[in-house]
């Protein structure tokens, strides 16, 4: 029997406090009635109401959402293909450089990724804007999707596919009816991570963006550089809330589909 010591509990409590205290402080101060960020002037939703009238900010929020939807979807498609290629096709020619190109962007400093993509867009003389940022985000995010889907494919019970093929299903049909439903939770998790990465990114977007494509992080960054403001506290609190609800919902969903997937596997056996 494992024993949980007082030291263990202390480490966890302190760690949780460290991770969550700053965010809690941020959210509390976004309800501060006082304009002075550090003086508590009572509860108020004043700063939230002011946000709706901030047209550029709302516009940026919509650009960011559209960007995240597009790049997450394409990245999920590409990343799933890459994961299938890496796990299922054995040692095809060029596998090593392919794997290297999948893993390198995961740790590459964002400044370099952003700079190199911008120089590419300049070299081929493309007008920079929404689509160049979308390509940049897709490239980074697809590598994360690949790693997540790959992990699921490795755990995959190959005999399920073999059974379908033995019963006469074509490879495509086998993939659509057997493989895809079983790896779907990983694909969904990959899509969500890609969505969050795109919504979060400041550096790569700053390099690759153009006129008319000011994303929300770029807008917030230009405000934040000038100091702490109650309006920014409110915007950030909304983003924290949306992400928090989405992640909790997704992990509940993954748990549900995970148990369902497991029971389906037992039934097939």
């Amino acid at each position: 029997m494992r024993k949980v010591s007082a030291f263990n509990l202390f480490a966890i409590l302190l760690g949780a406090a460290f991770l969550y205290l700053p965010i809690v402080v941020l959210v509390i101060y976004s309800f501060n009635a006082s304009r002075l960020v550090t003086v508590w002037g009572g509860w108020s939703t004043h700063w939230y109401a002011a946000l709706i009238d901030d047209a550029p900010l709302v516009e940026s929020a919509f650009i960011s959402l559209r960007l995240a939807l597009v790049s997450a979807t394409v990245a999920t498609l590409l990343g799933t293909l890459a994961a299938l290629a890496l796990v299922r096709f054995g040692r095809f020619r060029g596998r090593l450089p392919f794997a290297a190109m999948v893993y390198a962007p995961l740790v590459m400093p964002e400044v370099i990724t952003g700079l190199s993509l911008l120089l590419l867009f300049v070299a081929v003389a493309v007008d920079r804007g929404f689509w160049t940022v979308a390509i940049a985000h897709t490239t980074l995010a697809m590598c994360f999707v690949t790693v997540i889907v790959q992990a699921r494919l490795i755990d995959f019970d190959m005999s399920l596919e073999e059974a379908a093929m033995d019963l006469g299903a074509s490879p495509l049909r086998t993939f659509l009816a057997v493989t895809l439903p079983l790896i779907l939770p990983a694909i969904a998790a990959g899509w969500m991570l890609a969505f969050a990465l795109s919504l979060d990114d400041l550096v790569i977007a700053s390099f690759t963006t153009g006129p008319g494509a000011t994303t929300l992080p770029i807008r917030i960054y230009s405000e934040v550089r000038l100091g702490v403001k109650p309006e920014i506290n409110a915007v950030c609190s909304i983003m924290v809330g949306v992400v928090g609800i989405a992640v909790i919902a997704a992990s509940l969903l993954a748990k549900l589909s995970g148990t369902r997937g497991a029971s389906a596997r037992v039934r097939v056996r």
Partner: protein
Amino acid sequence: MKRHHGRSFWQSLVVRIPYLWLLAFFLVPFLIVLKISLSQTAIAQPPYVPVLDLAAGWPGLKAFFAALSFDNYVLIGSDPLYLLSYVKSVEIAAFSTLILIFIGYPIAYAMARLPRRWQAVLVVLVVLPFWTSLLIRIYAWMNILQHDGLLNQALMALSIVKEPQAWLATDTAIYIGVVYSYLPFMVLPLYATLEKHDESLREAAADLGCPRWKIFWLVTLPLSSSGLLAGVLLCFIPIVGEFVIPDLLGGSQSPMIGQTIWTEFFSNKDWPAASAVAVVLVCLLVTPILVYQNQAMRTLERE
């Protein structure tokens, strides 16, 4: 026979689409950075010469290669500003990775010892801040660390300090921001290996009279080395090139290398210099990146 043919067509498509995408948007951009780092700044659009003109044929190609130069690299080597910037980045990355190990290991270890049900909850708790925007998390720290912020208020209320201290625009603030932002990257790989440990190994050592610190040193730590290595690499490499954290929390005197690339590019409009700084940074990181890839692929094969 026909079926076999069909499969190989699909197969090649599945490999080729992501392969071509990464070639076009990851590898080719790097080659362009390399090329521009060997170019000169110019008041033109794009702001560097020479520009490769394939229509000019062989003589054009020869003139292009003749015009390339290593001037930007000579500049980086001779200007102490760049050197200091690299040193500072590596220093901050190394020390904060060390701090992350000391904070992250006890948390990961404790998580792995909790009952299963609680482990799942804690994994979500550790991952959740990672899903929130980095910009927001750093901004939250600006709230706390500013001159009349919560930290100074708390320290003065406890009469630890008499005057408000300057936290923002210091290296301490950078360390706080980096450790805060990268903690999940250290805890999760460590937890993943610690969680698989067989408790009976530790019990056997204890039964044979091994003191607890020695059990940790001889059994637990060596068994968790792969997770530790993954955590170190996942933190160290991106921290070296970090931009947002030092830009918002750090001072302006000695920038980290990510900030140097950013200013060369956006403020000085010196694209060739920015490219050269980036190329040197990649060379600096190439060993840890290769170790990381090797590790990632080995884990994959082993599974």
